[in-house]
């Protein structure tokens, strides 16, 4: 048995699947199953496809009858509802329309009117969710599953691999990692967390045998205006980018919970975010915008031979 790496691209990110097997060929059916699942979820929840569930929901905005969703989508919406409540309104899957105001490629700040115009169509409170019927009360409102469907997909792929008998392996969907299980000898995978400021460098190495590690950072999309860094993580209450934390990585039993928690911590900022994570009792590593590292796990680790994935 040896480990094999399978790289692919999905959900706009580089992805990797690491599995143990006798040969690459022997693992090919499992890899196909895994990538098919990621593709299925990407298609189903893509904002860019007319035939996606997301588009169907968004087309129904403002219509009184709303739209009836399938069980999987309903469970995802239920989850968003829980996360919204647990984050005091910061995790909000209606905040995607703020993108209309914020064009990070332009290098220009939006006007306050643009922000307010978009903000008028943001707010989970404006969604009537009566499972399985969903109604977006304002025309032009949108739901965006992009904030957590990748983490859900990582969980799904890991569960699928386990159901097919895999006991060792790791799923990496664009930096959201979910362990299928530790190395066959029980050693954890060593996960490198990308440094938010130094390209190609690792901020921390974390062991991962079970569960998942997901990260959020201000490095994915941002713009510098007059020396101020504006990142793509937008506060649904103010419509403006949040600041304070540069990067947060969280360990949780589910990648979905790890991802949501790291996003919420980013939204809560440098002071409240880490405190909120510590209150949850989840292990985490975070770096603030001054480059100061803090966390509840040892983030170093020099003698690590194995680095499964780098974020």
């Amino acid at each position: 048995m040896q480990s094999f790496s399978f790289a692919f691209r999905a959900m706009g990110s580089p992805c990797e699947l690491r599995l143990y097997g006798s040969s690459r060929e022997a693992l090919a059916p499992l890899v196909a199953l895994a990538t098919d699942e990621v593709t299925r979820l990407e298609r189903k929840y893509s904002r860019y496809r007319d035939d996606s569930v997301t588009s169907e929901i968004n087309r129904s905005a403002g219509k009184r009858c709303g739209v009836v969703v399938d069980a999987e989508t309903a469970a995802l919406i239920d989850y968003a509802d829980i996360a919204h409540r647990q984050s005091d309104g910061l995790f909000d899957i209606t905040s995607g329309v703020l993108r209309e105001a914020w064009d990070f490629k332009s290098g220009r700040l939006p006007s306050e009117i643009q922000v307010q115009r978009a903000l008028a169509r943001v707010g989970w409170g404006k969604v009537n969710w009566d499972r399985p019927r969903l109604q977006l009360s304002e025309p032009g409102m949108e739901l965006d599953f992009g904030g957590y469907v990748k983490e859900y997909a990582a969980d799904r792929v890991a569960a699928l691999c386990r159901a097919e008998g895999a006991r060792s392996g790791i799923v990496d969907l664009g930096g959201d990692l979910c362990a299928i299980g530790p190395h066959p000898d029980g050693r954890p995978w060593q996960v490198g967390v990308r440094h938010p400021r130094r390209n190609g460098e690792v901020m921390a190495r974390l062991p991962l045998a079970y569960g998942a590690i997901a990260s959020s950072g201000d490095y994915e999309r941002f713009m510098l205006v007059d020396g101020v860094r504006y990142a793509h993580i937008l506060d649904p209450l103010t419509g403006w980018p949040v600041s304070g934390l540069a990067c947060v990585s969280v360990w949780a039993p589910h990648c979905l919970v790890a991802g949501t928690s790291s996003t919420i911590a980013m939204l809560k900022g440098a002071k409240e975010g880490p405190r909120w994570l510590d209150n949850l009792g989840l292990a985490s590593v975070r770096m603030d915008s001054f480059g100061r590292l803090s966390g509840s796990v040892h983030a170093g680790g020099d003698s690590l031979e194995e680095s499964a994935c780098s974020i």
Partner: protein
Amino acid sequence: MAATKRGRRALHALSAGAAALPGLAGNGFAEAPAERVRAEYGWSNYSEDSVDSDSLISGSEGDRYEIDMHQFSASVPLGDRFDAALDVSYETMTGASPWFILPAADGTPVQVMSGATIEEERTDLLLSGSYYLDRGKLSAGSGISVEKDYTALNGNVAGEWHLNDKLTTLSGGLGFSFDDIEPTDSNLFLLRPEHGEKNSQSLFFGVAQVIDRFSVIQTSLAFQRSKGYLDDPYKQVFVAGSVLADSRPDARLQGAWLTRYRRHFAPVEGTLHADYRFAVDDWSMTAHSFELAWYQSFFDFVRVVPSFRYYTQSQTNFYAPYYLVPRSDGHHSNDYRLSPYGAISWKVKAETDFHTPWIRPIDWKANLTWERYRSDTDLAPVDVSIENPGLVSFNLLTFGLKALF
């Protein structure tokens, strides 16, 4: 890093939400069965009201049972998919019980109580285990119950299966019990048999359906067949001038249909529980029971649960308080449990959660429950010509403490 109560609740909510997604329930060790060692202790005091002196034969004491019960229960996870549990209970019982009923000259029933105060103790031991599947669980258990005059062995197997993204749960099970009865003092009381045996088998199946995020309904059918010695050796019955041993058919088939509805009212943090149970048997007894309970949370760590239950049953076909003419089938019983009556019970439960972080973190749950139960023929929906004077009313006080390590 110390997790706070609010934080743990938030994490629990998020994890439960994630586990509700299709395919994620069995994710890693996160959804392992009993993840933590559980230990539980309960104490209860059950105290029956004395029999009304007007209904008692003169010179007889009307004090009835008082039972103190101690229960201990623990469960431990064994690997990713198993957990095992042990339940032990010990109870002591003192007091007298209704023995037989005599007709007064005007036909009024007069209760005769068992002469001496009974002192009895009972020990129950139950060992059980569950195996968790990706979409359900299988459980099995076996127990023994020992009293001075009574030994019972029982066993059961049950299964649960989740369907439809866990919105639907099917369940079913089988059970058996073998009881061996050796009534005390059978040498002193000629009507008491020396030995009796009883076998019973039970079967249930049910379905639970999540209706929406706030409500769930469950309905189930249960059957039990009992064969053997079904009489009460400590009861006698007046039949046409003489006193005979309690005598019932040696087989009984019982069926019950139970429906439960739960609805959570998020704005007030309260949950309504409404249950209805219908039972019928081939001794031609039918029974209905309605229960309403309201689970109210305060400040995240206190719950108060007031509840109300109404119960009514018809009599079995061979029951009578006394018999002026013997029955042709030879079955006679004046047991109040086979008589027609209605009963109401009021219950209040207060429950609190707390956490002790010292040495090792422990989550505690403590509860105190008080119940008042009253049965009476006046509470029956039909007119009962002669009330059984042995109908019971009682107070029940329970204290429980549970620790999760």
